[in-house]
């Protein structure tokens, strides 16, 4: 089967369940391993005490909140350029998971900031741009719900998603461009991490769990979206439904 054939919703639909299940299992394994590393193997932090353990979810969620948006923007560009239905559906399927990740990043950041910086919230460049990201996700979901014709909604959401992508480098570089309360990256590709190795490993394993979780939920959601949007099609009528979700 070629990639071109796979881009049809009817060809992709049967793959969504086995793929989603596999990624959900991987997510569960990584989350358990990450929690084990984060709570059992990783020692208490010398300056932050136990409060630092929040970063095992905060950092992966914050990474995913941005990364999911980049993937959405990619699918939106493909949807506009090639007019493929499945890419627009993929973008649609990612938005709620992206919004959840952004919410978790903001929430855990606030709970980490209070004991560490002395405040739950500040109108700092990193936090404000991350909050704007949450509103972008809400806006994209609301725009989709406001337009009855799915193909028109695809195009409108694709344009909004691509325009909103300007916010991603702003979030990413905010700690470099401005003097922010939020500190710079503790882990980067270009230099040694400023954290103990076991803490970095715990964070990376949790990041893997977040990746797999996002892929699994997006695949489950695209399965529902395909059914919702193709329900008049002959191939849907021939499906042995309902199956166990």
């Amino acid at each position: 089967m070629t990639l071109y054939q796979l881009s049809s919703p009817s060809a992709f639909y049967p793959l969504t369940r086995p793929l989603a299940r596999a990624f959900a299992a991987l997510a569960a394994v990584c989350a358990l391993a990450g929690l084990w590393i984060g709570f059992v193997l990783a020692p208490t932090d010398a300056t932050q005490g136990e409060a630092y353990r929040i970063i095992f979810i905060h950092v992966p969620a914050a990474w995913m909140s941005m990364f999911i948006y980049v993937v959405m923007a990619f699918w939106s560009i493909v949807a506009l350029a090639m007019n493929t239905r499945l890419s627009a559906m993929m973008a649609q399927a990612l938005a709620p998971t992206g919004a959840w990740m952004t919410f978790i990043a903001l929430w855990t950041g606030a709970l980490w900031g209070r004991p560490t910086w002395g405040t739950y919230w500040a109108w700092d460049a990193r936090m404000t741009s991350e909050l704007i990201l949450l509103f972008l996700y809400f806006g994209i979901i609301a725009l989709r719900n406001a337009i009855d014709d799915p193909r028109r909604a695809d195009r409108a959401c694709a344009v909004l998603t691509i325009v909103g992508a300007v916010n991603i480098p702003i979030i990413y570089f905010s700690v470099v461009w401005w003097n922010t309360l939020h500190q710079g990256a503790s882990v980067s590709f270009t230099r040694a991490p400023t954290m103990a190795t076991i803490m970095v490993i715990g964070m990376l394993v949790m990041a893997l769990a977040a990746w797999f979780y996002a892929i699994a939920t997006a695949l489950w959601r695209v399965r529902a979206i395909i059914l919702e949007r193709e329900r008049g099609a002959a191939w849907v009528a021939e499906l042995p439904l309902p199956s166990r979700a």
Partner: protein
Amino acid sequence: MMELLSMGGYGFYVWGAYGVTALAVILEVASLRTRIRAAERMAKGQGR
């Protein structure tokens, strides 16, 4: 056990973060399940 709960005095923050994250995952998975079931029912109804 109490040690794990108190998190060196940071229990409220640590468990507040992990608890709400767990709740978010449960809510998202539950709403996905509902959505897929509804979509399957709808597709079946249209098909017959």
